[in-house]
Every structure is written in C-alpha cells, then in structure tokens.
C-alpha cells in the first residue's frame, strides 16, 4: 500500500516520464476524492433523506436528490416526534443537553486549569503520584463505576436529575482537563513563577495575572473537547437520567427505536442531524482546536 505514495518520487527524474508523473498525480487526486465521497456519503444521505417525503423514500433511491424539498420531517423531529410515550420531539432534550453540557464544561475546565497549574508549577511531594492516579482515571471503562454511581446519586437525592448528570460529567472529565492544562503549563518556564513570587505575587495572583491570560488556546481546546464528550455522551445519559431529563443522544435513540406507528425515516435522519449539529458546528468553526484536543487526549506529552 505504500506503493501508492510513489507519485512523489522526484528522486529519479529520468526513470519516470513526465506523462507518467502527471498520471500518478491524477490517480492520487482521484483516490483522495473517492475517499472524500466515502466520508461524505452518510451525511449526504442523512440530509437528502431528511428532506424527502416518506412516499419518496419508499419509491426512490438512497442517494437520489429529493424531488420535492420538504422540511416537515425537521419540524416533526424538533417538536413532534415520539420518544416512547411522549411526543414532543427533540427540543426539550436538546435543551437538557445544553443545560448539562454548559455547567459541566465550565466547572471541569476551571478545575482542570487549577489542577494543571498546581501539578505543573507547584510540585510538592506526591504530586506526581496524584497526577498519575488522576490520569489513569481517564482510561477506565465507565461500566466499572456505573453501579456504585447509580446508588450514590440515589443516596444524594440527585438520581435522574440534570444536576446529577452534571456532577458525573465533571467528575469523570477532570482527568482529561487536568491533563490538558498540565501539558500546556509545563511548557511555560518555571522562572516566570519565580519572578512573580519575588515580585510578591501569591499562588492565586500568579494564576490569575500570569497563567490565565496565557491560557486561551488551551481553554479553547479543553472546552471543545469537554463539550464534544458531554454532548455526545450516551452511557451516562441513558444510565442516570429519567423521563424528562434525558440528553439529546438518548432521546434520538428513543425516537429511532420507538416502535409506535409508522417508521418515519426522514424524521429519524432530521433528528440525527439536529443531535449532531452542535458538535459538527464546533468542528467546522474550530477544527484546529478540536484535532489538537483529540491528539492531546491520545498521545500524551
């Protein structure tokens, strides 16, 4: 498969005719184009299906454009589709997700920034072990905490509530947010902290006046990462919510798998797009930071 990279072979100009080189270059672009189609196809199908009538879906082809564009499915998906017994569409659940994501992202980012600042610049005995323990917490399969967490939320009286979900997302987001900020702050020279201490600034003053103003890029990365994680979460949502507090992913799944009435594929697709839209928008607007978060989250250091 590495042979496909040969088009670049400029090291032996005489062995390859100019025509052959151009042909290889074309082949390269055709391949890249085909892959682009592969990745875009599902989105295209979702979009066209959501704009078709049920009749057209049954008679037409999967990838044909809608003969008549109709936004009825979108309306239904937003405010009329049934998730089990209720038929209010995605709207209430969309707002649930917003109500869960915004505070959870804000709190976990702020705590991550403070933790990262401590771990990177105020090392004390045992700080390394604490950081390692927190880091490992990022990797556990959450199944292993589902049962005790369900019981604890019950004991705290926040089972099935939005504050309960916020709490869960903050707790299990802390490892990653701490890691992000820690990896960013270790690149800031420790002399800066020393200079500020000699200048008379204390722990919080240094954080506020010197580190925070430097942190915009990593705040963006962390906020995007946390937002994507929390918005797209399903496991916690489905385990710790009840009717009325479910996040949008759970509601989407309920709409798609609801067995009452006729299967409305166009509504399913519209609902799927609505549920995916916020993270997709974030990706389009701030893709650079999104990718940085992904790679920072996987390749440490």
């Amino acid at each position, binding site marked *: 498969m590495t042979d496909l990279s040969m088009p670049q072979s400029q090291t032996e100009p005489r062995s390859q005719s100019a025509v052959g080189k151009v042909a290889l270059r074309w082949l390269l672009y055709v391949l890249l184009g085909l892959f682009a189609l592969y990745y875009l196809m599902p989105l295209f199908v979702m979009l066209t299906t959501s704009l078709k009538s049920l009749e057209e879906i049954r008679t037409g082809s999967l990838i044909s454009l809608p003969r008549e564009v109709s936004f009825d499915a979108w309306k239904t998906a937003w405010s009329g589709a049934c998730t089990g017994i209720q038929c209010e569409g995605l709207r209430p659940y969309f707002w649930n997700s917003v109500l869960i994501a915004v505070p959870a992202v804000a709190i976990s980012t702020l705590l991550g920034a403070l933790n990262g600042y401590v771990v990177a610049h105020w090392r004390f005995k045992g700080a390394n072990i604490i950081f390692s323990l927190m880091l490992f917490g990022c990797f556990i399969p959450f199944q292993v905490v589902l049962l005790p967490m369900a019981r604890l939320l019950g004991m705290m009286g926040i089972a099935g509530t939005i504050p309960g979900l916020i709490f869960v997302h903050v707790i299990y987001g802390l490892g990653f947010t701490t890691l992000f900020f820690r990896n960013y702050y270790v690149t800031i020279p420790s*002399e800066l902290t020393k200079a500020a201490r000699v200048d*008379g600034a204390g722990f919080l003053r240094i954080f506020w006046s010197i580190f925070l103003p*430097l942190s915009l890029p990593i705040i963006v990365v962390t906020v995007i990462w946390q937002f994507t994680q929390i918005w797209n979460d399903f496991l916690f949502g489905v385990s710790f919510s009840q009717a009325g507090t479910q996040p949008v992913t759970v509601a989407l799944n309920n709409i798609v798998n609801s067995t009452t009435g006729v299967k409305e594929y166009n509504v399913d697709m519209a609902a799927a797009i609505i549920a995916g839209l916020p993270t997709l928008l974030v990706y389009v607007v701030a893709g650079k930071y999104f990718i940085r978060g992904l790679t920072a989250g996987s390749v440490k250091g």
Partner: protein
Amino acid sequence: MAPILDINKLYKNYGATEILKDINISIEPGDFLVLVGPSGCGKSTLLNCIAGLEEITGGTLSIGGNDMTHVSPKDRDIAMVFQSYALYPTMTVAKNITFGMKVRGVDQATQDAKLKEVAQLLQIEPLLNRRPSQLSGGQRQRVAMGRALVRDPKLFLFDEPLSNLDAKLRVEMRTEIKKLHQTLDASIVYVTHDQIEAMTLATKIVVLKGGVVQQIGTPAEIYNNPANLFVADFMGSPAMNLIPAQAHKNGAGTQIAIARDSGETLVLNDARDLALPKDVILGLRPEDIAEAGFRAGDGVQEAECLVDMVEPAGADTYVVSELGGKQVTARLHAETSAQAGKMLNLAFDMSKVSYFAQETGERLN
C-alpha cells in the same frame, strides 16, 4: 556595618542528595558577589535559596541584618533577574516593570514616577507599551533589569542574565551592568558559569564545585592564587598550565624538574624558600611564559623548547609545547618568530608559579 548578606552553614538536600554543603558567605553593602562554577555545581540552587524560592535544609541566612531563613521571597527585600528574563508575556513592558508594585499596593503616582525613573536610566522609554515578544534579546534584558531596579531592594540577584545573548551583546551588557553597579552602589549576587564575566564584574568571587565552596576571594586573589587545581583550571582562558614536576630543595630556593618527551629533563629554579613534597603539580599561566628577551625579572628562567603548534589570536600568539606530558601553552606577542617544529627559547616567570599537591590538588605555596 552589618553584612548585607550573611550565609551561615547552609545545607541543601533534595531527598538524599546533598546539593549544597556547608556554605558560608558574607558580603558587605556595595559588594558585587559572583557565584561561579561549572553547570550542576549548585550555584543556581544557592541563588534560589538566597531568594527564598527554595527552602534550605540547614543553616541560617540573613539579609540586611534580618534573619530570612524561613521568610518567603516577597518579604526578603530582594529583586531577581532571570536567565530567560521571565518577562510576563501578556503584559506590556510598563506593566511588567510595575507588576510588583501593583501587587504590593503601591499608589499609582509612585508607580508612574518609579517607572519613569527606571525607564530613563535604562533608556527603554520608547519600549514601554510593547509586549516582550516584540523586543530583541538585549531589550528584554534591559526590561528584566528594569523590573528589578524599580524595586530598589537591599539585594539584587542575577541568575546567568547574559547567557542568552550573543557574544557581542553580552560584552556590551556586561559593561552596562558594571556601570549600573557603580552608579547605584547596589549590592549584587550574580551567578554565572562564565569565568570572564566573573572576573570582570566581581568585587568578590565564590568558586563552587559539587555544592562545595572551593575558594572565596577577590578576582585577583582567585586568579593569582587559586586555592586548588580545580580553581586553577576553571578560572582563566586559556587555562593555567598544570604540569607534573618534581621539587628538590636547592639552597635557599627550590629546584623544579620537568620530564620531557625528548628525554632531556627541563630544570628550573624557583628562588622562593618553599616547603614542597617531591611530587607536585606546577601551575603557570600562559602569560607567565614569554619569548626569551621579552620578560625580565628576578624569577625569569629561560629554556629551549620544541614548538608543536602556533596559534595566532590577533593581539597575541599562543605557542604550544610539550612539557611533563602536558600540552603547555605560552602567550607570546603577536610578532613572534616562533614556527611549528622549530626550537624556541621560552622565558618562564618562576615567581608566579603556583604549586599543588598531586593527590589532594590543594595549593602548597
């Protein structure tokens, strides 16, 4: 007058590792103390201990007569200039300089007046509204000094402040720091690994190695009378020639025999009455070996040597010859006729020789 800085039996450990051992230093107001040594010798740690950025493990430390052993950096009445300058990247030059006063709640009028004064002194007025990233290395250096000067502290601490500058700028800034010291009559502790910086700036030098003080003295004392082989080798460039030799009592003076590759032993006489063991290391600076006829004095002894190499360096020409199994460098005048492979008559100024014990490396005379 009380010493401005008094360090007494200071120890510093990281876990089981001893970083600094039994450090005793005291300086008077107006002193320019340079801590010099190779990397890893503990000089920066010592400076951090003086600043209070590192807790010390044992001993006491006082600044301006007040015990500061467990006082936090902000209450030590010090200012510090860092190797990387450590300018706050998101603040303008003016804010960088006044940040310390702002933290301490100094009123705005005083801040402005102080800022103006320092900016004038350092000639950085046009830079006040810029960010550190928009400054050149030399300008950053000035701002970092401005941040320290504005505090008007009892004691200035400099942590290798010139090592990030290019060679030319380094010499310029060196001169400027010296000038500042003289105009302000400030007390300074300055860390460097560059022995030339130490020689040019210091009124007092501390040579450190492996966390242990090797010698404390004026630049002249350190240069002329190094306390041991390490100091002799570390201070001065090109380094002091250190030649294994044998000493014999010879009347009132001492006879020194140095083996040569040619088999013929070089014998030199030191007129001083010294009590030396038989095996010694003879230390002689390159400038104390001249071309015969260009150096006069009681201790001068001439001898013919085979020139292995000639290295013209502009103002001087260095000549390398083998003595006692070592490459010995002599510093000759620029117009010397020395040629590689030829014999040359060299004049050794034996009155300048330092002797060291072969085993311990300690100075003998």
